[in-house]
């Protein structure tokens, strides 16, 4: 009788745990965000002028395994036509041929290939992403610091559907000259260094 009860208990436990085991593994997070919360802030601090702007045309997918964050891979895409500064003349110049040439280069892409220096504390993982950044058709290898926050079961609070959220924050700097953004011109007004602040969240509905 006791043996039978133990066996039943073991089966019950196995059945209870099975869905969790079956769900284990990388989760695919979609970063398309119609609410336009996902954004990139860009800052250029030149001697004569400081320029700041935003871009909200973020999309892409990231594959993240909470148990193995070092295996995170994915791609974040930014639509260049969403680059915005409050001054309309400056925005026209920025979108024009001389600078970002958005009609010819409609996207900026970052492909994450490998995470190094991974440290996880609770729901937050910090690491350095090795990847490839493509701006104006020029692709360069970059290493950027990243902070990933895995919010299990929090998607229902945001999108009213069950699922998880992955929040990705990264601050890094690129050079205009590396990507052919009007290199060497007007550096007294438009800084050679562009500070980028990536603030995005991906959703994985269940």
């Amino acid at each position, binding site marked *: 009788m006791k043996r039978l009860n133990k066996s039943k208990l073991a089966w019950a436990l196995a059945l209870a745990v099975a869905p969790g085991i079956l769900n284990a593994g990388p989760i695919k997070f979609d970063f398309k965000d119609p609410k336009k919360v996902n954004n990139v*802030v860009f800052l250029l601090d030149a001697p004569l002028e400081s320029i700041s702007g935003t871009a909200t045309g973020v999309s892409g997918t990231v594959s993240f395994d909470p148990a193995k964050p070092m295996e995170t891979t994915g791609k974040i895409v930014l639509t260049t036509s969403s680059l*915005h500064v*409050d001054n309309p003349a400056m925005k026209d110049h920025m979108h024009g041929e001389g600078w970002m040439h958005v009609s010819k280069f409609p996207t900026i892409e970052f492909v994450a290939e490998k995470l190094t220096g991974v440290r996880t504390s609770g729901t937050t993982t910090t690491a350095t992403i090795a990847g490839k950044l493509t701006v104006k058709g020029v692709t360069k290898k970059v290493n950027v610091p990243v902070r990933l*926050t895995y919010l299990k079961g929090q998607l229902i609070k945001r999108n009213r559907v069950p699922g998880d959220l992955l929040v990705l924050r990264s601050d890094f700097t690129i050079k205009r000259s590396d990507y052919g953004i009007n290199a060497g011109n007007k550096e007294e007004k438009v800084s050679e260094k562009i500070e980028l602040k990536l603030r995005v969240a991906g959703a994985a509905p269940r």
Partner: protein
Amino acid sequence: MIGCSGLVLWLVGGLHMGWSKSTETRTEIDEVTGLEYPVTENKYVLGVELLGATLVVSGGLFGLSLAFRNPTRPDKQPGAETSSTQL
């Protein structure tokens, strides 16, 4: 008048020290993720370049008004000067 209008518009716009802008971006925080995100709304804010332009134009017009002032105004006539001197 032009200079005063420019100054008033600049003051109403919040003494904005940058270029004129047709939108204003403020930052909000997403409650669930804690992410800061920009919210852009259409709002014209006068910048220092247009404030400067209005002041230059008004100063120029003031200068022109002095250069082309009418020399035969009643208070400048010889009789008027004599009477004021006598007083």
